[in-house]
């Protein structure tokens, strides 16, 4: 247990934890939104994220023509590249999420199938997508090109601020703000909240549940796609299995914050990012994933309502 390192590097670790937490928070929004309207854990959400990383990769190479060996780019081209990769990743993940719902969940739901059947369908979709990408990528990881030179651009309260992570925190913050406004202010956003709170009454109000569900999956997918681009921007690689651990961590974040609760997902995401970074320093990075699993189990045992939300045991899976 290296407490000395933890204390000496605490500010920088906190900054890193916030950057990681921002990515978790964006992914966990998808779990929490879908859980809210359908009381379903969308196990395929991790693959929605995974596909987003490959979409970002494809956008950088095939649309922007950037290769791994290329020199870093700058100026207008850099900004354009970032925007194109972000938008392509978001749209791809958003569309994949909507398609998963249409193909794997909707017909089960409309036929009144049990929640358990839908859950199994979700796991099936997840495995199918992972295996498809395993075959397409020959089971190999892929590198993501470095768009710009990564450097420490500031020192705030002793924290070393790296430019790419700062960008991720800022952009993720903007997305979260926009989503929050969308959910709380727009008509369809209010529809999502209404269905989450009382589905039958929502129908009496004139809400088309299927439409709300589609928009919910779209929103969750867009956020996961953004997280996917931020992930490859910072970590510069991906693989068919990237969704697994990220998915577990983001799901843990959603449960930690209180599943079904949007602000809970944000709180849980940042809390988990910080805990993982601090924990990795204390126990060694090899323990990183153990930390998320342990927290998940502890939350379920000790405080199943999470910090802000509903008990997952009410989920009737």
């Amino acid at each position: 247990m290296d407490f000395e390192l933890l204390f000496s590097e605490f500010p920088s670790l906190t900054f890193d934890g916030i950057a990681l937490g921002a990515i978790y928070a964006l992914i966990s929004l998808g779990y929490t939104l879908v859980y809210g309207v359908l009381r379903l854990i969308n196990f395929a959400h991790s693959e929605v994220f995974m596909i987003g990383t490959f979409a970002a990769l494809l956008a950088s190479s095939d649309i922007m023509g950037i290769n791994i060996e290329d020199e870093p780019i700058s100026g207008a081209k850099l900004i354009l590249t970032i925007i194109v990769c972000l938008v392509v990743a978001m749209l791809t993940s958003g569309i994949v999420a909507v398609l998963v719902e249409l193909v794997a969940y909707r017909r089960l739901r409309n036929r009144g199938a049990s929640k358990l059947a839908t859950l199994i369908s979700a796991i099936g979709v997840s495995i199918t997508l992972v295996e498809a990408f395993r075959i397409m990528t020959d089971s190999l990881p892929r590198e993501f090109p470095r768009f710009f030179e990564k450097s420490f651009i500031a020192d705030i309260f002793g924290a070393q601020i790296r430019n790419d992570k700062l960008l991720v925190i800022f952009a993720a913050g903007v997305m979260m703000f926009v989503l929050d406004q969308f959910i709380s202010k727009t008509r369809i956003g209010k529809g999502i909240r209404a269905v989450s709170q009382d589905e039958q009454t929502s129908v009496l109000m004139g809400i088309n549940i299927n439409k709300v569900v589609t928009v919910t999956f779209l929103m969750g997918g867009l956020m996961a796609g953004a997280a996917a681009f931020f992930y490859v921007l910072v970590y510069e690689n991906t693989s068919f299995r990237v969704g697994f651990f990220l998915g577990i961590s983001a799901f843990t974040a959603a449960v930690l914050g209180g599943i079904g609760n949007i602000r809970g997902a944000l709180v849980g995401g940042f809390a988990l990012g910080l805990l993982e970074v601090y924990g990795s320093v204390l126990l060694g990075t090899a323990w990183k994933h153990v930390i998320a699993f342990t927290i998940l189990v502890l939350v379920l045992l000790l405080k199943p309502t999470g910090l802000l939300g509903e008990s997952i045991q009410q989920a009737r899976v």
Partner: protein
Amino acid sequence: MRLEIKNLSVYYGKIEALKGISLVVNQGEIVTLIGANGAGKTTTLKTISGLRPVTSGEIVFDGVNINQIPAYERADLGISQAPEGRGIFPGMTVLENLEMGKYNRKTRKAEMSEDLARVYELFPRLKERATQAGGTLSGGEQQMLAIGRALMARPKVLLLDEPSMGLAPMMIQNIFNIITEINNQGVTILLVEQNAQQALSRAHRAYVLEIGKITKEAKAKDLLNDPHVKSAYLGTGAHEIF
């Protein structure tokens, strides 16, 4: 406006909750459907609103069979419901709950302030509580909110499912007075109740529902003096029989 139900049967799995009931609600009336717990009252209203599928029979609204019209389009047709248990969105403010009542109306923007004013006039308490979360209201206030929200859709017929349930006697009086007032303003009402005394003294006509069948149909005033109804639904005997 005319709502007519013909030979309606509704199942939950193999259980036949409604066994071919027929009833009519005419423009301007308060019609009440009384019956004991489990008789099928809520099922009737849910089916009219489209939440339960029809197994056989017809729901005819303004001369059109609406069996196949999806539930979410029925509010805009003019069928509004304040459901059993009130169905308040607990995490939304009172104002947001009221706005939800107009969710599916194309004309909602133009009508909003006028209809809010009308609901606030009926229920001044809701105006005081406008920014408070629905889940923090008392039972009586929630019932007012449920009725007010249903009115926001400018219903041709208002379906009320046991509005007096769980309320204190003073509040029950208050709610029934408002129901009468809403009807005087021209809204047709189908009122489901276990509180038969109140329902029968407010309604024009009444149906008695017993285990999925309509066993009596009469003027409400007449049922108040009906020996069977008296012993089953009005007196202290109610507890012994049901």
